[in-house]
Structures are given as structure tokens and as C-alpha cells.
């Protein structure tokens, strides 16, 4: 797939990092403002998709990228499970998904115990999943056209 014109490339260069940072902001403020892991993950995947669409897929080693994003997805879901099991071990009561960290004051950035950690794991998982689907479609197209 070929890239687009120089105007689109320049605007993408300027905007892409901002969109990525916005996704990270949405994820880590998920317990204070609207948003959370699901919304932030999709926004991060969208910034990568914008980059691929405007610059074209020629300069990407697609197979390697796909292996990497698939690996990130699997490790993110494993992290989610490990935090849940840690709640069972450390929490003392033997309850799955136990909130074992102190709650803190409502409205501060560092509060709500393990909920921000869950948010980060889910955000990584959703972003990597959607990026993997998109890369799989691109690889399929390249292989069929060849």
C-alpha cells in the first residue's frame, strides 16, 4: 500500500503524537473522568492506524509488527489475571478480584487501589488487539496481491 501526499504526511507527523498522549491520559485518568481502559486503548490503536494509512505499509516490516502486537496482547491479559490472583493471595480473604491496595482519597490521581492497574492492563490489551486485526488485514492484502 502506498502512502498519501506530503500534506497528509506532515499533518500526521504533527498530530499523531498528540493523539497517542491523549489516549494515555484517558487511560490513567480512567477512575476520575469519563473514559478508562476501553476508550483509551481504542484511541491508541487509532493513532497507529492513522500512521499506517498516511505513510503506507511499505516501510513497515509487517510480520514482525504483527508478532509484537500479538505478544503484547497476550501478556496484557496475563497481567490482568495475575493482578486478580494477587488479590486472592495478598488480600487475605481469598476473594478473586479483591482490591488489596489502600483506597486513598476520592478524586486524587493516586487512589482507588488496584483499579488504575486494571485500567492500564485492559488499555494495552484493547489497543494491541485492534492493531493486530488491522495488521492481519494488511498482510492478507499484500500476500494476495503478490
Amino acid at each position, binding site marked *: 500500500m502506498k502512502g498519501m501526499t506530503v500534506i497528509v504526511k506532515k499533518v500526521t507527523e504533527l498530530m499523531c503524537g498528540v493523539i497517542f498522549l491523549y489516549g494515555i491520559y484517558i487511560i490513567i485518568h480512567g477512575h476520575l473522568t469519563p473514559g478508562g481502559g476501553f476508550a483509551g486503548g481504542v484511541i491508541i490503536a487509532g493513532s497507529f492506524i492513522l500512521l499506517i494509512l498516511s505513510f503506507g505499509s511499505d516501510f513497515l516490516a509487517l510480520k514482525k509488527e504483527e508478532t509484537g502486537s500479538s505478544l503484547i*496482547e497476550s501478556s496484557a491479559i496475563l497481567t490482568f489475571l495475575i493482578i486478580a490472583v494477587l488479590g486472592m493471595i495478598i488480600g487475605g480473604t481469598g476473594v478473586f*478480584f479483591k482490591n488489596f491496595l489502600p483506597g486513598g482519597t476520592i478524586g486524587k490521581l493516586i487512589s482507588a487501589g488496584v*483499579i488504575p492497574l486494571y485500567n492500564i492492563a485492559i488499555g494495552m490489551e484493547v489497543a494491541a488487539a485492534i492493531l493486530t486485526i488491522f495488521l492481519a488485514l494488511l498482510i492478507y492484502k499484500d500476500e494476495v496481491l503478490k
Partner: protein
Amino acid sequence: MEILLIVILVLMIGGAIFSLEARDLLSAVIAYGIVGFGLVICFLLLQAPDLALVQIVVETITLIIMIAVILNSTREDVKTRGGIRSVFFVIFAFIFAGLFLYFFNRVTGTLSDFGEHVMRMSEAYVLPGAEKTGSANLVTGVIFDFRGYDTLGEATILFTAVIGVLTVLRVKGRK
């Protein structure tokens, strides 16, 4: 506000019907975008900003994937034969839709009216929710604390769907 919701819903129904009847698949997909983006406005009016934020991004990416699929295959719809059979189909479709709407109307009589929802189960989540979980956003508190199993199941389904896409789209085996 109810009037606004009704207008947007009628617009969404029109977009859906046009999307299913369009001759060109590209215009069908773009008309399908009307439904998704109308849903975003409905979510905003119904006080659900989390859902509006997710829906607007998901709709954009769905449209990108659909347009990529159509541009790589064909844009023309399949040809349908008319005739006496299609008239029967239309009549049966209207009869079925009428029956469905009638029974649904009887079922909604047991629900509370629009805007007069009585919280039974959710009271335990709303009243002490912020103090118990420490999260100011009650929706996040419900997702990750009270109902964590649902989120685990969702992550599993997402993982399975990605594995399915990778399996279906593989042309050559990995060496």
C-alpha cells in the same frame, strides 16, 4: 429531550433502511455510519459520556475496516430477481413485524416508563460505591471492582476474536 431522541432515532432508522437497500456497497457502508454516529448523540443525551467516547472511536475504526474490505473486493451489490415470490416475502415481513411489535408492546407494559427507572440492584453500587472502591467514576468502579468477572470474560472474548481473525486470514503457514 424526548422529542430530540425521537428525531434522532427516526434519522437512524432511515439511515439503516437506506444502508440495506443501496445499490453501491460503498454508499451502504457510509449510510451505516449514520446509525453509529447517531447512537453517539443518543448516549450523550442519556448522560453516558463513557459510552459516547468509546462509541465514536469504535465507529470510526469499523468504517475504516469496512471500507478497506470493500475497496479490495467489489463495490457492486448482487443482482436480485423480482417476481411474484418477492411480493409474498414483503407481505410476510410486514405481518411478522406487526406481530413482533404487538407482543413487544405488551411486554414493555411490565417495565417502568421512560425516565422513571427504579434502581433495585444498582442501589448497592451507587450509594456506597465511591467510598467502597475509591473511584470517582462509578462506571469504572462497577467494571473493575464489583463485576470484575464480566471484564475478564470480555477480555477472553476479545482475545478469541483476534485469534480467529489471525487464523482465518493466514495464507501461508509460518515456517
